[in-house]
């Protein structure tokens, strides 16, 4: 449902994305991993149309990202660091987004109730702790029943209970045949979630395999071990 074709992006002299090509289909749950600054977030922002690629095309559900905007009603996005209008209350932000998106699908407020956000609805965004902000971001990402979910480091800053709730939710959505794209540095928690793995370094995709194939090739049972082996044996 997401496909990228030879996407390039530079910020000044720094080349962030280098000929990135990538395809994915519904039902996949893809982990996007790689060292800091390898272009994961930039790639995600390109998919969302927040960053405009220099060359190359990205399509989401067959629609070109550069020319359209309607495709974003099928995308739920949880940013790495949530940034919201500071003097709005949680309830107002959620209400506003519901009003703007006007999706005819039913509102999926599982996470709002699971995180007990209703009790915090009157709090202003600027007073929230990092973890609560992440909860709000997660709840918004899942709110509109989008068929593509993009989660940028979803569990960073969440307490163990909350990250367990979020993982359950991701598994449930995966079972419904949605495409889920997750970036994370905590490999152990990805093990049970993902079906495929993408490893990026210096703006290029070095590896794109299913989890099972990767484990078979390396002979490891844990994702972290398998990745460690790939990274050390990497042909230079």
């Amino acid at each position, binding site marked *: 449902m997401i496909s990228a074709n030879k996407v390039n992006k530079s910020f000044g002299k720094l080349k962030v994305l280098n000929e990135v090509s990538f395809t994915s289909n519904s039902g996949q749950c893809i982990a996007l991993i790689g060292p800091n600054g390898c272009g994961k977030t930039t790639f995600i922002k390109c998919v969302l149309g*927040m*960053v*405009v690629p220099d060359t190359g095309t990205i399509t989401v559900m067959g629609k070109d990202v550069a020319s359209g*905007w309607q495709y*974003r009603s099928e995308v739920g996005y949880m940013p790495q660091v949530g940034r919201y*209008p500071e*003097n709005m209350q949680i309830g107002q932000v959620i209400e506003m*987004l519901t009003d703007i998106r006007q999706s005819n699908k039913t509102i999926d407020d599982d996470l709002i109730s699971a995180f007990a956000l209703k009790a915090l609805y009157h709090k202003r965004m600027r007073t929230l702790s990092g973890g609560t902000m992440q909860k709000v971001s997660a709840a918004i990402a899942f709110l509109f029943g989008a068929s593509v979910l993009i989660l940028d480091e979803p569990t960073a800053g969440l307490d163990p209970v909350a990250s367990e709730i979020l993982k359950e939710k991701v598994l449930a959505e995966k079972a419904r045949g949605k495409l889920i794209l997750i970036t994370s540095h905590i490999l152990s928690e990805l093990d049970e979630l993902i079906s495929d793995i993408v490893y990026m370094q210096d703006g290029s995709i070095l590896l794109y395999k299913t989890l099972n194939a990767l484990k078979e090739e390396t002979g490891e049972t844990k994702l972290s071990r398998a990745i460690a082996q790939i990274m050390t044996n990497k042909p230079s």
Partner: protein
Amino acid sequence: MIKIIKYILLDILRNKMVLGYAVFLFAITFTVFSLEDSTQKGLLSMLNLVLFIVPLVSVIFSTIYVYNSSEFIELLVSQPLKRSSIWLSIFVGLAGALSLAFFAGAGLPMLFYEPSPTGLMLLLMGLLISVIFVAIAMLAAVHTRDKAKGIGFAILLWIYFSLLFDGLVLFLLFQFADYPLEKAMIGISALNPIDLGRILVLLKMDVSALMGYTGAVFKEFYGTDKGLIVSLSVMVLWIALPLLYSLKKFNRKDL
């Protein structure tokens, strides 16, 4: 798009700045008109205030607002909304709020004391200049990522239009005093919306005789209906060009 405008207007009005600006204008307008015994004189004082304060408040408030709502813009961009409609909604919200503040603060007392063609012209110029400087502020804000730099740039633009430009024109006039510059002055005055506004109001006041031969040339051109239409179109261009250029920039901007 109407929904985004609604949220932006609500957000601006929640900010007490605009309300304060309206109250300030209201107080000044009332004071000026009660101090002067002839309303014509009051109008002249108002003209200088309007051409000085309105662009300043408009340009600074808009620039700061655009920078402060970067989170809001980021949130909206990741939603199924067209980038152009987000940017245009911000423009409509800002222009609407500031024009409304000017109309309520300065326009209503002006209509009360001096409902003449001159008063109406001054009101129209105030509204147009509010909107023009919102467009210029949005251009400054989209151009630089750094907030301090962007606000500095906006203030610089205001200084250029309200102070430096007149100095440059005077310099030109003195340097080329031997040549007939009167016709050229019409073209040059179109390069500054504040000057254009001042000329249009002064011509309505029938004090153009004070401006010498150039004033007569101005009167001959701007005093006619055709001249009025041309100059109003130039002011609309002053809104449209910065706005369209900033829109083009915003559509390619990385957030």
